[in-house]
Protein backbone atom coordinates (compact mmCIF):
# COMPACT_ATOMS: atom_id res chain seq x y z
CA UNK A 1 0.00 0.00 0.00
CA UNK A 2 1.26 3.47 -0.84
CA UNK A 3 1.79 6.34 1.57
CA UNK A 4 -1.63 7.56 2.66
CA UNK A 5 -2.33 11.19 3.56
CA UNK A 6 -5.60 10.00 5.09
CA UNK A 7 -3.83 7.82 7.65
CA UNK A 8 -1.36 10.64 8.40
CA UNK A 9 -4.35 12.93 8.95
CA UNK A 10 -5.97 10.37 11.29
CA UNK A 11 -2.85 10.24 13.47
CA UNK A 12 -2.44 14.04 13.31
CA UNK A 13 -6.03 14.71 14.42
CA UNK A 14 -5.87 12.14 17.20
CA UNK A 15 -2.65 13.64 18.57
CA UNK A 16 -4.02 17.18 18.53
CA UNK A 17 -7.22 16.08 20.26
CA UNK A 18 -5.14 14.34 22.91
CA UNK A 19 -2.84 17.36 23.44
CA UNK A 20 -5.79 19.73 23.72
CA UNK A 21 -7.14 17.75 26.67
CA UNK A 22 -3.82 17.26 28.40
CA UNK A 23 -3.21 20.08 30.85
CA UNK A 24 0.45 19.20 31.28
CA UNK A 25 1.01 19.59 27.54
CA UNK A 26 -0.89 22.87 27.43
CA UNK A 27 1.10 24.19 30.40
CA UNK A 28 4.43 23.18 28.83
CA UNK A 29 3.44 24.71 25.52
CA UNK A 30 2.41 27.95 27.21
CA UNK A 31 5.01 28.39 29.95
CA UNK A 32 8.25 27.62 28.12
CA UNK A 33 7.68 30.31 25.47
CA UNK A 34 6.89 32.86 28.20
CA UNK A 35 10.24 32.09 29.81
CA UNK A 36 12.04 32.35 26.49
CA UNK A 37 10.40 35.64 25.53
CA UNK A 38 11.29 37.42 28.78
CA UNK A 39 15.02 37.57 28.09
CA UNK A 40 14.73 39.03 24.56
CA UNK A 41 12.22 41.62 25.87
CA UNK A 42 14.59 42.66 28.64
CA UNK A 43 17.39 42.82 26.08
CA UNK A 44 15.21 44.88 23.74
CA UNK A 45 14.10 47.47 26.26
CA UNK A 46 17.54 47.84 27.85
CA UNK A 47 19.10 48.99 24.56
CA UNK A 48 19.86 52.70 24.70
CA UNK A 49 19.21 55.01 21.75
CA UNK A 50 22.88 56.00 21.75
CA UNK A 51 24.09 52.43 21.20
CA UNK A 52 26.40 52.07 18.20
CA UNK A 53 24.70 50.48 15.22
CA UNK A 54 27.01 47.41 15.16
CA UNK A 55 26.35 46.73 18.87
CA UNK A 56 22.65 47.37 18.34
CA UNK A 57 22.56 44.86 15.53
CA UNK A 58 24.38 42.25 17.60
CA UNK A 59 22.08 42.67 20.60
CA UNK A 60 18.94 42.53 18.48
CA UNK A 61 20.34 39.47 16.76
CA UNK A 62 20.92 37.78 20.10
CA UNK A 63 17.39 38.64 21.28
CA UNK A 64 15.99 36.99 18.22
CA UNK A 65 18.26 33.98 18.68
CA UNK A 66 16.85 33.47 22.16
CA UNK A 67 13.42 33.30 20.60
CA UNK A 68 14.60 30.57 18.30
CA UNK A 69 15.00 28.42 21.38
CA UNK A 70 11.20 28.12 21.46
CA UNK A 71 11.00 25.89 18.36
CA UNK A 72 14.11 24.06 19.51
CA UNK A 73 13.01 23.24 23.04
CA UNK A 74 9.19 23.22 23.08
CA UNK A 75 8.72 20.23 20.73
CA UNK A 76 11.46 18.13 22.29
CA UNK A 77 9.46 16.78 25.23
CA UNK A 78 6.37 16.16 23.11
CA UNK A 79 8.35 14.36 20.43
CA UNK A 80 10.24 12.35 23.04
CA UNK A 81 6.90 11.19 24.47
CA UNK A 82 5.32 10.41 21.11
CA UNK A 83 6.22 6.72 20.70
CA UNK A 84 7.35 5.50 24.10
CA UNK A 85 4.41 7.33 25.71
CA UNK A 86 1.96 5.39 23.55
CA UNK A 87 3.80 2.23 24.47
CA UNK A 88 3.56 2.96 28.19
CA UNK A 89 -0.14 3.76 28.11
CA UNK A 90 -0.84 0.59 26.09
CA UNK A 91 -2.16 2.37 23.00
CA UNK A 92 0.72 1.54 20.66
CA UNK A 93 -0.27 -2.07 19.96
CA UNK A 94 -3.82 -1.27 18.80
CA UNK A 95 -2.34 1.44 16.58
CA UNK A 96 0.24 -0.88 15.03
CA UNK A 97 -2.42 -3.50 14.34
CA UNK A 98 -3.99 -1.15 11.79
CA UNK A 99 -2.58 -0.81 8.25
CA UNK A 100 -0.79 2.41 9.21
CA UNK A 101 2.81 2.43 7.95
CA UNK A 102 5.64 3.43 10.25
CA UNK A 103 6.42 6.54 8.19
CA UNK A 104 2.73 7.57 8.13
CA UNK A 105 2.53 7.20 11.89
CA UNK A 106 5.70 9.19 12.45
CA UNK A 107 4.81 11.96 10.00
CA UNK A 108 1.35 12.30 11.61
CA UNK A 109 2.90 12.54 15.03
CA UNK A 110 5.60 14.98 13.86
CA UNK A 111 3.02 17.27 12.24
CA UNK A 112 0.96 17.25 15.42
CA UNK A 113 3.99 18.56 17.31
CA UNK A 114 5.14 20.91 14.55
CA UNK A 115 1.85 22.75 14.00
CA UNK A 116 1.29 23.92 17.61
CA UNK A 117 5.01 24.65 17.98
CA UNK A 118 4.94 26.92 14.94
CA UNK A 119 1.75 28.56 16.15
CA UNK A 120 3.31 29.28 19.54
CA UNK A 121 6.70 30.36 18.17
CA UNK A 122 5.26 32.72 15.55
CA UNK A 123 2.73 34.10 18.02
CA UNK A 124 5.49 34.87 20.51
CA UNK A 125 7.53 36.46 17.75
CA UNK A 126 4.49 38.54 16.80
CA UNK A 127 4.13 39.68 20.40
CA UNK A 128 7.82 40.55 20.45
CA UNK A 129 7.53 42.60 17.26
CA UNK A 130 4.39 44.32 18.51
CA UNK A 131 6.06 45.18 21.83
CA UNK A 132 9.09 46.52 19.94
CA UNK A 133 6.94 48.60 17.61
CA UNK A 134 4.93 50.09 20.45
CA UNK A 135 7.46 50.61 23.20
CA UNK A 136 11.06 50.45 21.90
CA UNK A 137 13.18 53.36 20.71
CA UNK A 138 12.70 54.13 16.96
CA UNK A 139 16.30 53.20 16.22
CA UNK A 140 15.79 49.85 17.90
CA UNK A 141 12.52 49.35 16.03
CA UNK A 142 14.14 49.88 12.67
CA UNK A 143 16.90 47.43 13.62
CA UNK A 144 14.38 44.81 14.73
CA UNK A 145 12.31 45.13 11.58
CA UNK A 146 15.24 44.61 9.23
CA UNK A 147 14.43 42.05 6.56
CA UNK A 148 17.30 39.62 7.32
CA UNK A 149 16.23 39.39 10.98
CA UNK A 150 12.65 38.67 10.06
CA UNK A 151 13.66 36.20 7.39
CA UNK A 152 15.98 34.27 9.70
CA UNK A 153 13.24 34.07 12.31
CA UNK A 154 10.59 32.92 9.86
CA UNK A 155 12.82 30.35 8.17
CA UNK A 156 14.70 28.97 11.16
CA UNK A 157 11.61 28.40 13.31
CA UNK A 158 10.31 25.40 11.32
CA UNK A 159 13.82 24.12 10.62
CA UNK A 160 14.78 24.05 14.30
CA UNK A 161 11.41 22.59 15.24
CA UNK A 162 11.88 19.85 12.64
CA UNK A 163 15.34 19.03 13.96
CA UNK A 164 14.07 18.84 17.51
CA UNK A 165 11.05 16.73 16.53
CA UNK A 166 12.99 14.12 14.59
CA UNK A 167 15.72 13.80 17.21
CA UNK A 168 13.07 13.54 19.94
CA UNK A 169 11.03 10.99 17.98
CA UNK A 170 14.13 8.92 17.25
CA UNK A 171 14.91 8.85 20.97
CA UNK A 172 11.30 7.96 21.72
CA UNK A 173 11.30 5.09 19.23
CA UNK A 174 14.34 3.57 20.90
CA UNK A 175 13.60 4.27 24.57
CA UNK A 176 11.86 1.95 26.96
CA UNK A 177 10.96 4.62 29.50
CA UNK A 178 9.15 7.94 29.06
CA UNK A 179 11.28 9.79 31.63
CA UNK A 180 14.52 8.70 30.03
CA UNK A 181 13.21 9.65 26.60
CA UNK A 182 12.18 13.12 27.76
CA UNK A 183 15.47 13.74 29.52
CA UNK A 184 17.37 12.69 26.41
CA UNK A 185 14.99 14.80 24.33
CA UNK A 186 15.88 17.88 26.35
CA UNK A 187 19.56 16.99 26.02
CA UNK A 188 19.08 16.73 22.27
CA UNK A 189 17.79 20.30 22.26
CA UNK A 190 21.09 21.49 23.77
CA UNK A 191 23.09 21.95 20.54
CA UNK A 192 21.04 24.99 19.47
CA UNK A 193 21.35 26.27 23.06
CA UNK A 194 25.09 25.83 22.80
CA UNK A 195 25.19 27.76 19.53
CA UNK A 196 23.24 30.61 21.12
CA UNK A 197 25.51 30.56 24.15
CA UNK A 198 28.62 30.69 21.98
CA UNK A 199 27.16 33.61 20.07
CA UNK A 200 26.25 35.47 23.23
CA UNK A 201 29.80 34.96 24.51
CA UNK A 202 31.17 36.31 21.20
CA UNK A 203 32.90 33.01 20.50
CA UNK A 204 30.87 32.74 17.29
CA UNK A 205 29.83 35.85 15.39
CA UNK A 206 26.37 35.50 13.88
CA UNK A 207 26.96 36.06 10.18
CA UNK A 208 24.91 35.51 7.06
CA UNK A 209 27.22 32.69 6.01
CA UNK A 210 26.86 30.93 9.34
CA UNK A 211 23.09 31.26 9.18
CA UNK A 212 23.12 29.84 5.68
CA UNK A 213 25.27 26.86 6.71
CA UNK A 214 23.13 26.13 9.75
CA UNK A 215 19.96 26.47 7.68
CA UNK A 216 21.26 24.10 5.03
CA UNK A 217 22.31 21.57 7.68
CA UNK A 218 18.93 21.69 9.35
CA UNK A 219 17.15 21.37 6.03
CA UNK A 220 19.07 18.18 5.29
CA UNK A 221 18.35 16.77 8.78
CA UNK A 222 14.65 17.63 8.47
CA UNK A 223 14.40 16.24 4.96
CA UNK A 224 16.01 12.93 5.84
CA UNK A 225 14.77 12.79 9.42
CA UNK A 226 11.48 11.04 8.83
CA UNK A 227 13.10 8.36 6.71
CA UNK A 228 15.83 7.78 9.27
CA UNK A 229 13.39 7.60 12.17
CA UNK A 230 11.03 5.34 10.20
CA UNK A 231 13.98 2.99 9.63
CA UNK A 232 14.69 2.99 13.37
CA UNK A 233 11.04 2.22 14.15
CA UNK A 234 11.15 -1.47 15.05
CA UNK A 235 7.61 -2.72 15.67
CA UNK A 236 8.74 -5.94 17.28
CA UNK A 237 11.05 -4.19 19.68
CA UNK A 238 8.32 -1.71 20.59
CA UNK A 239 5.75 -4.44 21.21
CA UNK A 240 7.86 -7.06 22.92
CA UNK A 241 10.96 -5.22 24.10
CA UNK A 242 13.07 -7.61 22.01
CA UNK A 243 14.84 -6.78 18.80
CA UNK A 244 12.98 -7.80 15.65
Amino acid sequence: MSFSAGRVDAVFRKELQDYRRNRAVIATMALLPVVFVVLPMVQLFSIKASTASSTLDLRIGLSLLYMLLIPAVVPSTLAAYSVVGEREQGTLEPLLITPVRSDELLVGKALAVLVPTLAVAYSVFGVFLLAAALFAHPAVVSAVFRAPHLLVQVLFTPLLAGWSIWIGTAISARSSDVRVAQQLGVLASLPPLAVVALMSLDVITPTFGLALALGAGLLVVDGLGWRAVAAMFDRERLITGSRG
Partner: protein
Amino acid sequence: MPAPGALRVEHLGKRFGNRVAFEDVSFEVGYGEVFGFLGPNGAGKTTTVRVLGTLIAPTSGSAVVAGFPLGTENDQAVRARISIMPESPGLYLRLSVAENLRCFARLYGVADPEERTGRALEAVRLTDRAKDPCGSLSKGLRQRVALARALLNEPVVLFLDEPTSGLDPVATREVHELVAGLRSQGVTIFLTTHRLEEAERLCDRVAILSTTLRMTGRPDELRDRLFSKALEVRTRVPLAEPGSTFAGVPGVGGWGQSAPNAYTLTVTDVEVAAPALARALVGAGADILAIAEARRSLEDVYLELIGEDVEAGRR
Protein backbone atom coordinates in the same frame (compact mmCIF):
# COMPACT_ATOMS: atom_id res chain seq x y z
CA MET B 1 -18.01 -27.55 8.47
CA PRO B 2 -16.94 -24.03 7.45
CA ALA B 3 -14.87 -23.55 4.33
CA PRO B 4 -11.18 -23.83 5.18
CA GLY B 5 -8.68 -21.06 4.76
CA ALA B 6 -9.19 -18.11 7.11
CA LEU B 7 -6.01 -19.18 8.88
CA ARG B 8 -3.52 -21.86 7.88
CA VAL B 9 -0.57 -22.26 10.20
CA GLU B 10 2.27 -24.70 9.52
CA HIS B 11 5.04 -25.46 11.98
CA LEU B 12 5.05 -21.87 13.16
CA GLY B 13 7.48 -20.89 15.90
CA LYS B 14 8.86 -17.85 17.64
CA ARG B 15 11.98 -17.53 19.76
CA PHE B 16 13.29 -14.53 21.64
CA GLY B 17 17.00 -15.29 21.81
CA ASN B 18 17.24 -18.63 23.58
CA ARG B 19 13.72 -18.46 24.96
CA VAL B 20 11.08 -20.37 23.01
CA ALA B 21 7.74 -18.54 23.01
CA PHE B 22 6.07 -21.32 21.01
CA GLU B 23 7.21 -23.82 18.43
CA ASP B 24 5.98 -26.23 15.80
CA VAL B 25 2.42 -24.97 15.90
CA SER B 26 0.17 -26.10 13.07
CA PHE B 27 -3.58 -25.73 12.69
CA GLU B 28 -6.22 -24.48 10.31
CA VAL B 29 -9.24 -22.28 10.94
CA GLY B 30 -12.13 -22.15 8.50
CA TYR B 31 -14.14 -19.09 7.55
CA GLY B 32 -16.95 -18.45 10.01
CA GLU B 33 -15.41 -20.67 12.64
CA VAL B 34 -14.83 -19.69 16.26
CA PHE B 35 -11.49 -21.18 17.20
CA GLY B 36 -10.37 -21.25 20.82
CA PHE B 37 -6.69 -21.07 21.66
CA LEU B 38 -6.21 -22.29 25.20
CA GLY B 39 -3.19 -22.44 27.39
CA PRO B 40 -1.76 -21.33 30.70
CA ASN B 41 -0.05 -17.98 31.23
CA GLY B 42 3.19 -17.86 29.27
CA ALA B 43 2.13 -20.66 26.92
CA GLY B 44 2.67 -18.43 23.87
CA LYS B 45 -0.95 -17.53 23.07
CA THR B 46 -0.47 -13.76 22.81
CA THR B 47 2.81 -14.16 20.93
CA THR B 48 1.03 -16.43 18.44
CA VAL B 49 -1.64 -13.77 17.92
CA ARG B 50 1.01 -11.10 17.47
CA VAL B 51 2.82 -13.22 14.90
CA LEU B 52 -0.39 -13.94 13.00
CA GLY B 53 -1.27 -10.25 13.25
CA THR B 54 2.09 -9.31 11.63
CA LEU B 55 3.20 -7.38 14.70
CA ILE B 56 6.21 -9.62 15.15
CA ALA B 57 7.98 -11.93 12.74
CA PRO B 58 8.04 -15.71 13.20
CA THR B 59 11.40 -17.44 13.52
CA SER B 60 10.20 -20.64 11.87
CA GLY B 61 7.29 -22.04 9.92
CA SER B 62 4.72 -20.29 7.80
CA ALA B 63 1.13 -19.10 7.92
CA VAL B 64 -1.57 -17.83 5.61
CA VAL B 65 -3.77 -15.20 7.27
CA ALA B 66 -6.98 -14.04 5.60
CA GLY B 67 -5.66 -15.34 2.30
CA PHE B 68 -2.19 -13.77 2.49
CA PRO B 69 1.05 -15.59 3.39
CA LEU B 70 2.88 -13.98 6.32
CA GLY B 71 5.80 -11.90 5.12
CA THR B 72 6.89 -8.27 5.14
CA GLU B 73 5.44 -7.67 1.68
CA ASN B 74 1.95 -8.67 2.87
CA ASP B 75 1.97 -7.06 6.32
CA GLN B 76 -0.30 -4.17 5.41
CA ALA B 77 -2.68 -6.31 3.37
CA VAL B 78 -3.05 -8.73 6.29
CA ARG B 79 -3.55 -5.92 8.80
CA ALA B 80 -6.24 -4.37 6.61
CA ARG B 81 -8.21 -7.65 6.68
CA ILE B 82 -7.88 -8.65 10.30
CA SER B 83 -8.47 -7.09 13.69
CA ILE B 84 -6.93 -7.82 17.03
CA MET B 85 -8.54 -6.94 20.31
CA PRO B 86 -5.61 -7.04 22.73
CA GLU B 87 -6.00 -8.08 26.34
CA SER B 88 -5.67 -4.47 27.42
CA PRO B 89 -8.13 -2.22 25.53
CA GLY B 90 -5.47 0.45 24.85
CA LEU B 91 -7.91 3.33 24.38
CA TYR B 92 -7.03 7.02 24.36
CA LEU B 93 -8.56 7.89 27.69
CA ARG B 94 -8.81 11.64 27.11
CA LEU B 95 -10.66 11.11 23.84
CA SER B 96 -14.33 10.27 23.67
CA VAL B 97 -15.55 6.84 22.61
CA ALA B 98 -16.55 8.16 19.18
CA GLU B 99 -13.26 10.04 18.71
CA ASN B 100 -11.31 6.86 19.46
CA LEU B 101 -13.33 4.92 16.93
CA ARG B 102 -13.29 7.62 14.24
CA CYS B 103 -9.48 7.75 14.45
CA PHE B 104 -9.25 4.01 13.84
CA ALA B 105 -11.89 4.08 11.12
CA ARG B 106 -9.73 6.63 9.28
CA LEU B 107 -6.63 4.49 9.83
CA TYR B 108 -8.48 1.60 8.18
CA GLY B 109 -9.44 3.95 5.36
CA VAL B 110 -13.18 3.29 5.60
CA ALA B 111 -15.23 5.44 3.26
CA ASP B 112 -17.52 6.98 5.87
CA PRO B 113 -15.84 6.90 9.31
CA GLU B 114 -18.84 8.55 10.96
CA GLU B 115 -21.30 5.96 9.71
CA ARG B 116 -18.98 3.01 10.45
CA THR B 117 -18.33 4.32 13.96
CA GLY B 118 -22.07 4.52 14.55
CA ARG B 119 -22.55 0.94 13.34
CA ALA B 120 -19.72 -0.39 15.50
CA LEU B 121 -21.14 1.37 18.55
CA GLU B 122 -24.54 -0.10 17.79
CA ALA B 123 -23.01 -3.57 17.55
CA VAL B 124 -21.62 -3.31 21.07
CA ARG B 125 -24.65 -1.42 22.38
CA LEU B 126 -22.74 1.72 23.30
CA THR B 127 -24.39 4.35 21.11
CA ASP B 128 -25.53 6.33 24.14
CA ARG B 129 -21.96 6.54 25.47
CA ALA B 130 -20.42 7.85 22.22
CA LYS B 131 -19.53 11.25 23.65
CA ASP B 132 -18.17 10.02 26.97
CA PRO B 133 -14.41 10.20 27.49
CA CYS B 134 -13.00 6.67 27.54
CA GLY B 135 -11.31 7.46 30.84
CA SER B 136 -14.73 7.70 32.48
CA LEU B 137 -15.80 4.18 31.44
CA SER B 138 -15.67 1.02 33.53
CA LYS B 139 -13.29 -1.76 32.51
CA GLY B 140 -16.14 -3.75 30.98
CA LEU B 141 -17.29 -0.81 28.89
CA ARG B 142 -13.73 -0.11 27.75
CA GLN B 143 -13.51 -3.70 26.62
CA ARG B 144 -16.69 -3.20 24.60
CA VAL B 145 -15.23 -0.07 23.00
CA ALA B 146 -12.13 -2.09 22.11
CA LEU B 147 -14.40 -4.69 20.53
CA ALA B 148 -16.19 -1.97 18.56
CA ARG B 149 -12.80 -0.72 17.38
CA ALA B 150 -11.93 -4.24 16.24
CA LEU B 151 -15.11 -4.37 14.15
CA LEU B 152 -14.48 -1.12 12.27
CA ASN B 153 -12.75 -2.72 9.28
CA GLU B 154 -15.23 -5.61 9.10
CA PRO B 155 -12.37 -8.08 9.59
CA VAL B 156 -12.06 -11.40 7.81
CA VAL B 157 -10.48 -12.76 10.99
CA LEU B 158 -11.07 -11.25 14.40
CA PHE B 159 -8.47 -12.08 17.05
CA LEU B 160 -9.71 -11.72 20.60
CA ASP B 161 -6.86 -11.97 23.09
CA GLU B 162 -8.24 -12.81 26.54
CA PRO B 163 -11.32 -10.64 25.94
CA THR B 164 -12.78 -11.18 29.41
CA SER B 165 -9.58 -11.02 31.41
CA GLY B 166 -10.19 -9.10 34.63
CA LEU B 167 -13.87 -8.51 33.97
CA ASP B 168 -16.60 -9.14 36.51
CA PRO B 169 -19.22 -11.83 35.76
CA VAL B 170 -21.75 -9.34 34.36
CA ALA B 171 -19.24 -7.70 32.02
CA THR B 172 -17.93 -11.14 31.05
CA ARG B 173 -21.43 -12.24 30.15
CA GLU B 174 -21.93 -9.14 28.04
CA VAL B 175 -18.72 -9.81 26.11
CA HIS B 176 -19.77 -13.45 25.65
CA GLU B 177 -23.11 -12.33 24.24
CA LEU B 178 -21.38 -9.97 21.84
CA VAL B 179 -18.99 -12.71 20.68
CA ALA B 180 -21.90 -15.12 20.27
CA GLY B 181 -23.65 -12.46 18.19
CA LEU B 182 -20.60 -12.10 15.94
CA ARG B 183 -20.42 -15.86 15.63
CA SER B 184 -24.01 -15.99 14.44
CA GLN B 185 -23.13 -13.37 11.82
CA GLY B 186 -20.41 -15.67 10.45
CA VAL B 187 -17.37 -13.70 11.65
CA THR B 188 -14.24 -15.85 11.93
CA ILE B 189 -12.99 -15.53 15.48
CA PHE B 190 -9.68 -16.62 16.97
CA LEU B 191 -10.17 -16.50 20.72
CA THR B 192 -7.32 -16.91 23.18
CA THR B 193 -8.36 -17.61 26.70
CA HIS B 194 -7.59 -19.60 29.78
CA ARG B 195 -11.24 -19.54 30.79
CA LEU B 196 -12.30 -23.00 29.81
CA GLU B 197 -16.01 -22.49 30.24
CA GLU B 198 -15.67 -19.54 27.87
CA ALA B 199 -14.02 -21.72 25.23
CA GLU B 200 -16.53 -24.51 25.73
CA ARG B 201 -19.43 -22.10 25.38
CA LEU B 202 -18.21 -20.06 22.43
CA CYS B 203 -15.84 -22.16 20.34
CA ASP B 204 -16.49 -24.61 17.54
CA ARG B 205 -12.99 -26.05 17.95
CA VAL B 206 -10.17 -25.47 20.37
CA ALA B 207 -6.41 -25.93 20.39
CA ILE B 208 -4.49 -26.41 23.59
CA LEU B 209 -1.07 -24.80 23.64
CA SER B 210 1.74 -25.07 26.10
CA THR B 211 4.67 -23.79 24.03
CA THR B 212 3.84 -26.62 21.61
CA LEU B 213 0.37 -27.49 20.42
CA ARG B 214 -0.98 -30.35 22.52
CA MET B 215 -4.29 -31.08 20.86
CA THR B 216 -6.77 -29.58 18.40
CA GLY B 217 -10.40 -30.46 17.85
CA ARG B 218 -13.99 -29.97 18.98
CA PRO B 219 -14.29 -30.00 22.78
CA ASP B 220 -16.25 -33.29 22.67
CA GLU B 221 -13.67 -34.83 20.32
CA LEU B 222 -10.89 -33.94 22.74
CA ARG B 223 -12.85 -35.52 25.56
CA ASP B 224 -13.36 -38.68 23.55
CA ARG B 225 -9.71 -38.81 22.57
CA LEU B 226 -8.45 -38.41 26.12
CA PHE B 227 -11.02 -40.15 28.22
CA SER B 228 -12.93 -43.40 27.79
CA LYS B 229 -16.72 -43.13 27.85
CA ALA B 230 -18.36 -43.84 31.19
CA LEU B 231 -21.76 -44.30 32.76
CA GLU B 232 -22.55 -43.19 36.29
CA VAL B 233 -25.07 -45.26 38.22
CA ARG B 234 -26.77 -44.42 41.50
CA THR B 235 -29.01 -46.86 43.33
CA ARG B 236 -31.18 -46.35 46.42
CA VAL B 237 -29.12 -48.84 48.44
CA PRO B 238 -25.70 -50.35 47.68
CA LEU B 239 -25.78 -53.36 45.34
CA ALA B 240 -25.26 -56.69 47.07
CA GLU B 241 -22.99 -58.06 44.34
CA PRO B 242 -22.05 -55.28 41.93
CA GLY B 243 -19.36 -57.38 40.22
CA SER B 244 -21.77 -60.06 39.10
CA THR B 245 -24.49 -57.47 38.23
CA PHE B 246 -22.18 -55.58 35.85
CA ALA B 247 -20.27 -58.62 34.54
CA GLY B 248 -22.48 -59.67 31.70
CA VAL B 249 -23.66 -56.25 30.56
CA PRO B 250 -22.76 -55.71 26.88
CA GLY B 251 -20.41 -52.80 26.24
CA VAL B 252 -19.20 -52.50 29.84
CA GLY B 253 -15.44 -52.71 30.13
CA GLY B 254 -14.94 -52.24 33.85
CA TRP B 255 -16.40 -50.62 36.89
CA GLY B 256 -15.51 -48.74 40.05
CA GLN B 257 -17.35 -47.59 43.16
CA SER B 258 -17.28 -43.84 43.83
CA ALA B 259 -19.68 -43.93 46.83
CA PRO B 260 -21.50 -46.74 48.68
CA ASN B 261 -24.42 -46.52 46.27
CA ALA B 262 -22.65 -44.92 43.26
CA TYR B 263 -20.71 -46.70 40.52
CA THR B 264 -18.77 -45.59 37.48
CA LEU B 265 -18.65 -47.98 34.52
CA THR B 266 -16.34 -47.59 31.57
CA VAL B 267 -18.21 -48.43 28.38
CA THR B 268 -17.41 -48.74 24.70
CA ASP B 269 -20.78 -47.49 23.46
CA VAL B 270 -23.17 -45.60 25.73
CA GLU B 271 -26.21 -46.28 23.60
CA VAL B 272 -25.66 -50.02 23.80
CA ALA B 273 -24.54 -50.18 27.41
CA ALA B 274 -27.10 -47.90 29.09
CA PRO B 275 -30.31 -49.83 28.28
CA ALA B 276 -28.59 -53.17 28.97
CA LEU B 277 -27.32 -51.85 32.29
CA ALA B 278 -30.81 -50.67 33.25
CA ARG B 279 -32.17 -54.14 32.51
CA ALA B 280 -29.38 -55.81 34.52
CA LEU B 281 -29.99 -53.55 37.52
CA VAL B 282 -33.74 -54.19 37.44
CA GLY B 283 -32.99 -57.90 37.09
CA ALA B 284 -30.80 -57.71 40.21
CA GLY B 285 -33.67 -56.07 42.08
CA ALA B 286 -31.93 -52.69 42.42
CA ASP B 287 -33.87 -49.44 42.81
CA ILE B 288 -32.26 -47.15 40.22
CA LEU B 289 -31.96 -43.48 41.14
CA ALA B 290 -29.93 -42.46 38.08
CA ILE B 291 -28.03 -43.75 35.09
CA ALA B 292 -26.19 -40.99 33.27
CA GLU B 293 -23.29 -40.57 30.93
CA ALA B 294 -20.29 -39.23 32.81
CA ARG B 295 -19.56 -35.78 31.39
CA ARG B 296 -15.92 -34.84 31.21
CA SER B 297 -15.51 -31.10 30.92
CA LEU B 298 -13.02 -29.24 28.77
CA GLU B 299 -11.38 -28.41 32.06
CA ASP B 300 -10.68 -32.12 32.58
CA VAL B 301 -9.12 -32.29 29.14
CA TYR B 302 -7.10 -29.15 29.78
CA LEU B 303 -5.85 -30.31 33.14
CA GLU B 304 -4.95 -33.69 31.74
CA LEU B 305 -2.86 -32.06 29.02
CA ILE B 306 -1.47 -29.06 30.82
CA GLY B 307 -1.45 -30.15 34.44
CA GLU B 308 1.91 -31.87 34.19
CA ASP B 309 3.51 -28.80 32.59
CA VAL B 310 2.13 -26.54 35.29
CA GLU B 311 3.40 -28.85 38.01
CA ALA B 312 6.79 -29.08 36.33
CA GLY B 313 6.86 -25.29 36.09
CA ARG B 314 6.19 -24.98 39.80
CA ARG B 315 8.97 -27.43 40.61
